[in-house]
């Protein structure tokens, strides 16, 4: 079984793939991109919840750090949720400029967020939670999105 770090990092990459497919479809027409945009948002939401409801919660319990890095990551998830909603609004308004302006911002926010998680937080989580790694990955894998 993959470690927490491997599992979540691989999930980042599969969200990136969906992001690229979404932009590809949107360059033809925004209506054509509607489905894939929803798919990307759902996949991202699932990733956020796997972290917030499972991994972050375990990490916070183990380390006692509730106002530290996980609070910041939760805050950035909220920023991204806001931008994802704007993507759907842009599709409804048929506003391509706004759509691609938003994807540009979202992409940078997403990647600098991912870098911080992959470079630091996941490494630290893996160190603290190595004994429970399999159980946590299993919980994330079987989680139902709320």
């Amino acid at each position, binding site marked *: 079984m993959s470690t927490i770090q491997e599992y979540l990092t691989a999930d980042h990459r599969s969200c990136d793939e969906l992001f690229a497919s979404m932009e590809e479809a949107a360059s033809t027409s925004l209506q054509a991109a509607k489905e894939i945009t929803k798919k990307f948002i759902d996949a991202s939401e699932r990733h956020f919840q796997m972290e917030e409801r499972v991994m972050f919660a375990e990490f916070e319990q183990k380390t006692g750090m509730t106002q530290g890095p996980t609070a910041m990551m939760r805050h950035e998830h909220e*920023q991204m949720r806001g931008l994802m909603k704007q993507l759907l609004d842009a599709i409804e308004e048929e506003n391509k400029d706004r759509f691609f*302006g938003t994807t*540009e911002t979202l992409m*940078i926010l997403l990647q600098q967020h991912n870098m911080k998680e992959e470079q630091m937080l996941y490494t630290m989580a893996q160190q603290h939670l190595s004994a429970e790694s399999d159980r946590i990955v299993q919980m994330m894998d079987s989680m139902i999105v709320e």
Partner: protein
Amino acid sequence: MELAGLSTDQAPPISAPLRFFLTAPLFAILAGFLILLSESSTLFSRYSIESIAITHAITIGFLGFVMLGALMQMLPVLAGVKIYKVKIITLYSHIALVFGVVFMVYGLYFSSPFINLLAAIFLIFGFLILLIPMLIALRDVDNFSPTVKAINTSLIFATISILIGGYLLFGYSSGTITHIHLIVADIHSVWAIFGFVGILIIGVAFQVIPMFYVAPRFKPFCKRRVVHIISAGLLVWAFLNIFYPEYEYIAKTWISLFFFAFASAVWVKLNNRRRPTSDVTVWYWRTSCIFMSIGFFAWMFNSYLDDEYIVIISIIIGGGFILSIMIGMLYKIVPFLVWFHLNAKGYMNIPTMNEMTNKKILIVQFVLYLLSILGFIFSYFYPDILVYSALSFILSMVLLEYNIIKPVLVYVKIIKTKPDFDMSAFNMDV
């Protein structure tokens, strides 16, 4: 493990990088005017006072400022490091470097030993006050990724190059320029450009190209070894340059081939990127790859031509390869910082990154920049076009300044209004 980069109160305030970014084009404009007022024959002599002054207005004033601004922003994200008292040291460093570059240009043009001495002191102080805390902070990093390793190596080359540069400038202040100075000047320029800037660009590209363009990743061998290989090449080159100059071409070939391989890798990865958007920043990356490949081959073969074309090669590498990447990066980073800091302060109605800049003006800026660099290169053979190239360069840098000030004005305007949400709990500095 240091987790400083994961909280906004530890990340640098927006003023820290912007201070450096907004000043950089002003020095490029200054360099443009100095070129406009110079004879082409003087400029194409590497050791003329005018060439040295103009080169440093660009290398320190533009490239140095952009890199320092970017490093402050990237280190917390890429390495999770906290730079000691970042707000205050960026302020002091910025002031010292602005005075340092202005004094250096003035001191060299007007042959003033005292002003040159002041320039050396200000420049060494301005650089080291930032570089030393960065190097110290990097020592605590646990997860030493290839990018962090490259940044660390690059900062070591930077520190040595700056100290050597200071020594050379002291030489101008005391009027003692000897044969040793010329050898040392070679090491200073090659280590600064290839060691400091080149290795930094390679390290950042490992991370940025696959992530931001959803492009294939760099091969593990490339990520793990290329920085070591180039660093070893630079050390061997310095040794050969001092003791066996007739063999220095071996090390030059070594270094050039690996930079060429890197340029080709970036080109191929951009071709295979998953994101379809092709904006001006992609054009800048591509332009940079072309100039990087031509520049390094030219540098390699120049050894066989008694270094006759060194100034053209410097224009290709410094102006074509490095400047392109820096400008492209500014177009991404400045609008993003504005969005990010406003959003973190609770503002929700922020223009998108694309709405903060005018796409047409970005393209005009790119075309003028490209024409100016090509013009500078060909003015070696056709001196009459130097004036037009300088004018094109000045105009492109004025537009660059406009393009990056525009998002900052958006920030200034919005920050005066009331935020949509109270985010004071996150306590971010402005």
